[in-house]
């Protein structure tokens, strides 16, 4: 009964937020289309647009799906349902992360297929694109986790500032690495130790953030 209720809450969240997700996917596809035009400027605009779409969605979703529950006073409605705080947290984490993962994964796969299908882009850049996109996923998880635990718009904005500031720095560090930079130009995909370490670190941070979110939420005594 309860498991099906968690699923019902997740599906309800997905139904309510389907338009921003669809819009983000469409925006990412258009950005890839712009890169297709060719030339340095369309490439820079297209790549920036592609990542900006994901970053904007990463900022919008936690606000809309988590903070607004308290701000718009729909939280008492949800909590009047036969659900515990832990189950609510599980539903919110799965629905919010799922809402982001769908366009994120779609666009990452689209970008990988796009690179693989065009000779002018070396396949060696695929691991870097995945690592760059994963950093946005880390940032999203941080924003969503802070939003869930703090239920505060101010704290969520602070998490956004931290995340958004870290992207440029993270990307700079990534491409500054000599091995990664060299393998980016390789016509074949190279999973070197450096890029695998970066991806492993990003994955570990995501697991840590989500685990910590779940733990802190389950310790709350007052919920509304």
């Amino acid at each position, binding site marked *: 009964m309860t498991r099906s209720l968690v699923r019902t809450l997740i599906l309800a969240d997905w139904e309510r937020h389907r338009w921003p997700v669809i819009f983000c996917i469409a925006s990412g596809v258009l950005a890839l289309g712009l890169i297709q035009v060719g030339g340095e400027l369309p490439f820079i605009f297209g790549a920036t647009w592609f990542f900006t779409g994901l970053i904007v969605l990463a900022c919008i979703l936690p606000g809309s799906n988590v903070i607004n529950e308290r701000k718009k006073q*729909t939280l008492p*409605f949800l909590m009047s349902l036969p659900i515990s705080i832990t189950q609510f947290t599980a539903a919110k984490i799965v629905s919010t992360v799922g809402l982001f993962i769908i366009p994120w994964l779609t666009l990452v796969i689209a970008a990988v297929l796009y690179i693989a299908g065009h000779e002018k882009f070396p396949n060696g850049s695929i691991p870097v694109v995945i690592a760059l996109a994963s950093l946005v996923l880390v940032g999203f998880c941080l924003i969503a986790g802070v939003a869930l635990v703090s239920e505060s718009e101010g704290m969520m904005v602070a998490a956004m500032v931290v995340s958004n500031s870290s992207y440029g720095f993270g990307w700079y560090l990534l491409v500054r690495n000599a091995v990664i930079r060299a393998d980016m130009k390789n016509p074949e995909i190279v999973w070197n130790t450096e890029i695998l370490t970066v991806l492993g670190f990003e994955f570990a941070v995501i697991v840590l953030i989500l685990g910590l979110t779940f733990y802190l939420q389950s310790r709350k005594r007052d919920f509304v």
Partner: protein
Amino acid sequence: MKNLAIQLDGVGKKYRYFTLDNIQLQLPPGQIMGLIGPNGAGKSTTIRILMGLIHQDQGEVRVLGHRMPAEQVAAKWDIGFASEDMRLYDVMTLDWHMRFIRSIYPQWDPAYAQLLLKRFGLMAEQKIKGLSHGQRVKATLLLVLARRPRLLVLDEPTTGLDPVARHEILRELTAVMNDEGRSILFSSHNTQDVEQISDQITFIDRGRIIDSMDKEAYLDRWRRLRLEAPTGIELPALPGVISIRQTGRLAVATSNEFGPGIARAYENSGARVQTIENMTLEEIFVAKVELSREEHQEVGA
């Protein structure tokens, strides 16, 4: 004891500027209890504790036999909860909310939901953001009532409603009680609403329950006596009289345990009883709150 719809025993909750202190509350099945208190008295905190939404620091809470907050999931299958600060998703339609609740509660009654739509004058296809405040309250109550809960917990449901909307909602709540197994806990600072539908009344002020009893017992026991006391006559302090306010020759005595002996005692003291008046629940409530605050100040001093 096991059959009580609601049982709060010695419940306390401490905040920085507010303390809910030793709350004792019992609601038998099939009864409507009105929880009356001024703003900030602790009505919502009490209700949130019994819904498991906030955890008490001390005391035991049982709702429909379930310990709260530990067994809140099991309890909430049979509780319909609506509060004044509860909102629905404003970009979704009422129909979406009805489908949502229906997918959760197997006991959802679609025919009753349609009936309530008609009675409340609501349109299912309308988005929540397009509804007036009164319509939103009715929409929330529809979602609560159509799932046929054994216990309704309503926190200030009639606040801000016009008289017609209030009447419609109170009528529906009274109709719900045709099923004798159902119970309602209904908080408000509007004593008229509570007086209209409640069997039992509980007064709460500054985080403490100051009185709780049968509504008829309140109305039977409380009286206001208007007295004329000639100069030189001192009105006696009588048991069952909680206050005497005297201005010149005229005095008003308030009794919470009225019996014919009180009027006789004043007559015997040389005063003349001009009138003996029934008191409204609001007047009883105000007198009770004032008395409680005076007593509390004396204890504190």
